[in-house]
């Protein structure tokens, strides 16, 4: 079991490095995708409803990597991601679907709303709607969509990531 968490930590670290270095050359209007947020969101979205401790664990690790590689104070992302993590689980419990546990339309709208909230609340150097902001949204959304379909296939096999 611990092996799973180790892989998650390594993957989050890998995505943090990737978005800060590799994607610097593939920026869209100066923006790079927030891969750490995307991965965190996928983990929480496909996690079992009653696993609150896991949500906190994902939020602490993802938040730490986001803060370390940004100009923010350490802990800002951790707090935001914990709130976002519980929001995802709460909204998911309210929007239960019998046929499909993880509908794409919920995922996409939830992801977009919560990423906007995260980006606006993060104490960055600037916080405003601009071409950079939309570039970041679109870019992250692309990866989230791809990630959703991959996770859905895994979930179909194992019922949970």
């Amino acid at each position, binding site marked *: 079991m611990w092996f799973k968490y180790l892989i998650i930590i390594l993957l989050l670290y890998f995505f943090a490095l990737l978005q800060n270095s590799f*994607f610097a050359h593939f*920026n869209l209007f*100066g923006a790079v995708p927030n891969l750490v947020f995307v991965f965190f969101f996928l983990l929480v979205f496909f996690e079992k409803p009653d696993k609150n401790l896991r949500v906190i664990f994902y939020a602490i690790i993802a938040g730490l990597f986001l803060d370390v590689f940004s100009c923010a104070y350490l802990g800002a992302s951790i707090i935001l991601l914990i709130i976002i993590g519980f929001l995802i689980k709460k909204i998911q419990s309210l929007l239960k679907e019998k046929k499909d546990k993880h509908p794409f339309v919920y995922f996409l709208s939830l992801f977009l709303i919560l990423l906007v909230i995260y980006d606006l609340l993060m104490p*960055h*150097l600037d916080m405003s709607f601009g071409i950079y902001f939309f570039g970041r949204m679109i870019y992250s959304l692309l990866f989230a969509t791809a990630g959703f379909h991959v996770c859905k296939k895994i979930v179909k096999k194992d019922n949970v990531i």
Partner: protein
Amino acid sequence: MNGLKNISINKKNNILLKGLAGAAVLFLFIFVLNFFNAQIKNSFYFLSYPVQKVFFAAGETASGYLKPVFNVGNLAKENENLKRENEKLLFQISLLQAIEKGNRALIDMSLQSQNRDFTTVMAEIYGLDGKDALSINKGSADGILEGMPVINQQGVLFGKTFEVYKNFSKVVLISNKNSVISVKVQQSAADLSALEIDGVVKGNGGLEVYLDLVPVDEQINEGDVLVTSVLEGVFPKDLLVGKITKKEKNDQKPFQQAHVEPFFSLDNTNNLFVITNYKR
């Protein structure tokens, strides 16, 4: 009945207590993290640097391969070479224009300061940290302090250092929304008798900048080059900033604005120079 009610209240209280205890532990954890903020970040950068460097180089190679596909043939590389050559020429032109205006003595001083007196520390870029900020692999151990100008070898201004750790620093680019720098407009036409026009270049985010606070009665043209001025005292004079691409003039406003194409580019730029001894 009362017993059941008490159990329910106790359960609620327990959950509340656990929640409060959890929150307290979390805040304590965050407090400790921030107490060692600089050390933690520096250690992370130190550990990650070799991998990030590889990823950064891989990204550069991959973008080099992909760009020609999108840009038809080898246009990207050729364009980059021409841009660099152009930057060099523009830098020379900006200096020559000033000489022609009779400020030979001052320019000599400027040349001296730019070519000889500046102590620079070469640093390698290894990351773009969103919101128009770069990561470089030199820090306070190399003599870098906050607020030092950062340029490339062609004298193109990138920005200034703003977060300095022991071995690493962050550079806020001039395109950052909080960035405002004093500039002067070098007329592209060979009108050397024209007076210098002052303005400010503001960051627009997304690696974009624009020119502002140019009096409406001043004549600026597309293609005019912007260089740093000494008014602000943060950057040395005559560093290349950008080129006017489109002006926006409204007679009802006291100042005119213009779109500016910045000279700095992340493509094929691996090394930057931090000016460590510029006196403000």
